[in-house]
C-alpha cells in the first residue's frame, strides 16, 4: 500500500512509520505544520510543531528512507480547532480540541488530500487498534490502558477508519520507546506531549482570558439563589470545578461548593454542593459512528474523558439527540465534552454532550 505517515517529530509517530515500512508499505512522510508562528524549540512536554519538531521528523523520515514533506495546515487548524475551542468556551462549554483535530485535520484534511494524491492509507502514532470485523473495519482500544487513545479517535467514521493505520495499538509505550532506541531513532527519549498543544504554558484559563473578553459577574448558590461571590469571567469556569472560586461566604452546612453550571448568557457561575454534580443521564448531539449504529436500548460503556473510566450504560435514540442512561451516578460532566461509546474494546461512536441531568427515577 501507499501509506502517508504523519510524523510529529516525536517517538510514537516515528516508530509507527518504521513499522509501516517494515510491513512492506511504500511510505511517504509528512509533518503537519499547525502553528502559524512556530517556536524554534519546545522545552518539556508542552507545545508542538516547533521547527525542532519538524527537523526531528525529517531526520526520522530520513532514517526510514521515506521522502519527507511539510504540509501547512495552520489555517485549517486555526479555524477548525483553535477558533472552535474559543467559541465553545465562550458559549460555556468544555470542548476537547484533540478530538476536533483528529476529526477535522488529521483524518479529514490530511486524509482527503492523501487519498486525492494517490495514497491508500494514513498512518499515525496513535495508540489504538483496527481489526477487520464482520461489518467492516473496527476501531478498538490499544492494549496499553495507560496510553489508549481510542477516546480521541472516537470521532472517526467507518470510512476514515478504513483508510487509517495505527501500528502501535498492540504495544505498550515502554515497548515503543525501547524499539525507538533499538532502531536508533534519535527522539527516543523525547518527552511525551501532553495538554493542549497550542497553549504552550499549560495555562488554559489564562490563555482563554486573552482570547475571550472577561466580564466580571456573580457567583450564585443554585440552592438558595443568593449571590455568594464574584468571578472575573464566566468562561474560565467549568462544571465540576472547585478551585479558583474564592467564595468568601462559606455556606452554613460547611460543605464545599462546586461549579454546577456556567450560564454564559447571563454571565453567572452557578455553584452548589457536590451532590448536584451527580448525574446519570447524558444528552448528546452530533453523533459520529465508527461502524453500524447500536440498537435502541443497547447496553454499552461510555467514556467521557480521555483517560476516564468506561461506565456501563444504555443508549437511546431520540428525535435529534442521543440519550445515554448511566447505570451509576457520574460526578461532574460539562456540556461540550465528548461521550465516546464502546462495545467491549470496540469504539461504537461518539457524540458531544449537550446536557446532563439526574433521571427522575433516581
Amino acid at each position, binding site marked *: 500500500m501507499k501509506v502517508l505517515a504523519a510524523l510529529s517529530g516525536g517517538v510514537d509517530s516515528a516508530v509507527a512509520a518504521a513499522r509501516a515500512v517494515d510491513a512492506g508499505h511504500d511510505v*511517504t512522510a509528512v*509533518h503537519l*505544520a499547525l502553528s*502559524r508562528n*512556530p517556536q524554534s524549540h519546545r522545552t518539556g512536554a508542552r507545545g508542538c*510543531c*516547533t*521547527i525542532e519538531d*519538524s527537523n526531528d521528523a*525529517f531526520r526520522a523520515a530520513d532514517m526510514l528512507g521515506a*521522502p519527507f*514533506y*511539510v*504540509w*501547512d*495546515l*495552520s*489555517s*485549517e487548524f486555526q*479555524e477548525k480547532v483553535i477558533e472552535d475551542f474559543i467559541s465553545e468556551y465562550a458559549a460555556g462549554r468544555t470542548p476537547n480540541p484533540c478530538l476536533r483535530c483528529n476529526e477535522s485535520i488529521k483524518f479529514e*484534511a490530511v486524509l*482527503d*488530500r492523501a487519498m*486525492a*494524491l*494517490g495514497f491508500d492509507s494514513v498512518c499515525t502514532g496513535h495508540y489504538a487498534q483496527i481489526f477487520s470485523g464482520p461489518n467492516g473495519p473496527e476501531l478498538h482500544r490499544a492494549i496499553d490502558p495507560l496510553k489508549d487513545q481510542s477516546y480521541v479517535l472516537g470521532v472517526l467514521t467507518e470510512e476514515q477508519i478504513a483508510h487509517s493505520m495505527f501500528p502501535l495499538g498492540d504495544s505498550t509505550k515502554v515497548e515503543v520507546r525501547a524499539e525507538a532506541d533499538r532502531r536508533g531513532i534519535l527522539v527516543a527519549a523525547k518527552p511525551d506531549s501532553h495538554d493542549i498543544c497550542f497553549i504552550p504554558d499549560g495555562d488554559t484559563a489564562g490563555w482563554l482570558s486573552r482570547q475571550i473578553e472577561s466580564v466580571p459577574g456573580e457567583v450564585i448558590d443554585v440552592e438558595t439563589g443568593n449571590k455568594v461571590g464574584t468571578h472575573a469571567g464566566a468562561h474560565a469556569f467549568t462544571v465540576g470545578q472547585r478551585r479558583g472560586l474564592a467564595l468568601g461566604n462559606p455556606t452554613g452546612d460547611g460543605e464545599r461548593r462546586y461549579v454546577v453550571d456556567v450560564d454564559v448568557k447571563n454571565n453567572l457561575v452557578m455553584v452548589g454542593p457536590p451532590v448536584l454534580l451527580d448525574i446519570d443521564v447524558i444528552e448528546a448531539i452530533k453523533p459520529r459512528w465508527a461502524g453500524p449504529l447500536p440498537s435502541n436500548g443497547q447496553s454499552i460503556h461510555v467514556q467521557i474523558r480521555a483517560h476516564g473510566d468506561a461506565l456501563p450504560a444504555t443508549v437511546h435514540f431520540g428525535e435529534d439527540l442521543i440519550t445515554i442512561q448511566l447505570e451509576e451516578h457520574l460526578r461532574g460532566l460539562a456540556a461540550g465534552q465528548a461521550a465516546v461509546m464502546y462495545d467491549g474494546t470496540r469504539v461504537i461512536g461518539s457524540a458531544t454532550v449537550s446536557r446532563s441531568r439526574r433521571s427522575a427515577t433516581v
Partner: protein
Amino acid sequence: MYPEAVAAMTNLLAQPGNPSSLHASGRRARRLVEESREKVAKALGSRSAEVVFTAGGTEANNIAVKGIAWDQRKKEPQRTRIIAGSTEHHAILDPVEWLVESEGFSVTWVKSDTYGLITPDALREAIGPDSSDVAVITIMLANNEVGTVNDIIALTAVAREHGIRFHTDAVQAPAWLELNFADLGVCAMTVSAHKVGGPHGIGALVISRDCHVTPLIHGGGQERDVRSGTLDTPAIVSFATALEISKARRTETVARVRIMRDDLVRRVQEIAPEAIYNGSIESRLVNNAHFTFPGCLGDSLLMLLDAQGVECSVGSACNAGVPQPSHVLLAMGADRDAARSTLRFTLGHSTTQTDIDALIVALPSAIDRAKRAGMPTLTSAPVRV
C-alpha cells in the same frame, strides 16, 4: 559541480598552509588564493582587488546591504532609507527587514511589473522626489524564481543621477550571462560558487575600492578588512576553476540548454494549456521555466513529481519547511492562490533531453492528482508590496 572543480578542491584539502601565514606553506596557499582572485576578477570584469571572498552569496548580500547602509548612515546620518526590489531573494529581503526592525532604517520596495521586471521608472518612483535619505539601493540581476533578468545598467544610471550606492545580487547570473562588473555601474555585486558548478559555501562580494562597508564579522580583517576569517583555499581555487570553465563553455551551454528549456515549455503548454508561463519571455535566464498550474498546489505537484524522480521547486520554504506563497509572484501581481500554484523547473549544464522527457511523462498524472487534492485554505503569510 564540474569534475575539474571537484579535482581542484580535493587535491588541495590535504595541503597545509593558511594563506595569512608568512612561512612557505602559507605563501603557497596565498599564491593560490590570489591567482584564483585574478581568475574570478577576469571572469566578472572587475579588478582583482575588488574581489572579496565570502562564505557564499547570503553572506555577501548581508555584507553589502548592512555594511553599505551602516557606512552611509555613519557618514551622513539622514541616510536611513533602503530601496530594494520587491522580488529579491530572502538573502536580501531578510537583512533589509532586519535593518528596518532592529536598526532604525526604513525601506521602500521597488515595484515589479507583471513579468518580474524592475524598470528604471519603477526605481525612480521608489526613490521619489527627495533622495537625500537613501543609504543604498539593492536590486537583483536575475530572479531566482521566475528567471527575469533586470537591466542593471539602466537601473544604475538612475541611481547615479542621485549619487546613491547600488548593490546587485547576481548569484543567478554568471553561468548564463556575460557579466562585466565595471560596465554594470554597481558598487557591489554578489556571486556564489555553487551556481557556476563550484562548491557550496563559497562566494564573493565584488566591491569597488571606493565603496566602503562597515564589516559584519571582525577578527583579523583577512579580506580587505571587509571580511574576517581564515580563507578557505581549496574552496576558493575550486570556485575560480568552476567560474573559468563555466565562462569558457557558456556559449555552447546556453545554446544547448535554451533548446531543451524551450522544448520543455512548449510540451508543458501542450499538456496543460491552462498553465501560465510566468516571467519575461525575452529578458530571462535560459535555464528557467516557471509555471502557474491553476488549481494545483505547488507542493502537491512537487511531491508527486518527486515520487517519479523529477526534481523541481516551489517558491520558497520557511525554516520549518512550510511552503509559502511565492512573494515574487505576489509582487508580480498574482493572487495568493496563484502564488501557491507554481512550479519552477531549473536546468543546469548537466541536464539532458532524457530529463525533460521524464518530466513530460510524469506531469499529466501529477497535474490530475494535484487538482483532485485541491487547494487548502490560505495561510496568513505576510504580503510584502
